[in-house]
């Protein structure tokens, strides 16, 4: 599915002000940003999507025990809280291991996402697989897509 995101995500050049996009990318601090926006690379990374009747959040949380992940929702504000433990002491000895490279982040995290209006927090479901947690938030009845029938006279 995520190969498809190349299509869905903001097109890099096609039909848009590409110069501005490149500059925005290079000087991300310029201009106003959403009050809850975070820099890219914040742990855990998330993808968002929607179908006709639900909003889906995919949380990429490798090495996080799904049971220890605290998911809460108030109106359309989704909060993810948890802790990721990285190996500290060596497996055989009580000494600190010699690190050649440490790129992964560990410790406590919390992340807040603003979702589209009109999701039903009560009916939210979460499912974990291979370090990705899928959160399904059904849309409220009035937010769903409806077909309008044209009546013949």
């Amino acid at each position, binding site marked *: 599915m*995520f190969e498809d995101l190349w299509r869905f*995500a903001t097109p890099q050049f096609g039909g848009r002000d590409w110069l501005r996009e490149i500059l925005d990318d290079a000087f991300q601090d310029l201009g106003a940003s959403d009050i809850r926006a975070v820099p890219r690379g914040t742990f855990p990374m998330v*993808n968002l999507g929607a179908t006709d009747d639900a909003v889906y959040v995919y949380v990429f949380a490798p090495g996080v025990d799904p049971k220890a992940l605290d998911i809460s929702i108030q109106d359309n504000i989704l909060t993810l809280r948890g802790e990721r433990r990285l190996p500290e002491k060596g497996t055989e000895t009580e000494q600190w*291991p010699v690190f*050649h490279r440490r*790129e992964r982040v560990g410790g406590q995290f919390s992340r807040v996402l603003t979702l589209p209006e009109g999701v039903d927090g009560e009916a939210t479901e979460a499912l974990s*697989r*291979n*370090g990705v947690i899928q959160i399904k938030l059904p849309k409220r009845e009035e937010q769903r897509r409806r077909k309008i029938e044209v009546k013949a006279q």
Partner: protein
Amino acid sequence: MSQETNKGDQQVATREQSRDVAAQRSERPLLPPADIYEEAEAIRVVADMPGVSKEGLHIEVDGTELTISGDIRVDTPEGLTASYAEIRGSQYYRQFILGKEIDNEGISAEINNGELMVVLPKKKTHRPRQIEVKAA
């Protein structure tokens, strides 16, 4: 039996095709963040690869070159339209050069909850020895 084999071949073919399509869209694989640490008898590589199952993981050793790659598979409902994405791509890929002291035959790997652990054992001759100092 032969039917099954055919089916398998077809699956491989479609998979290769989809990879070609991805390549045409100039999709770059994602670089998984990794920790590497040294122990007395092995070097351990731990990498974050969420969305990769045991079946989608490929570990290859060619001489002194270690290649880690994994297909990102996330089951999504039909008709899903993505509105925001921080993880974009369908594959992780990363290479490391190993030292000659690594015992290639003994390399093992496991992936658990999107966290990959590769253990690169050292050859017996390269493990540390305690040198006893004798009294004169």
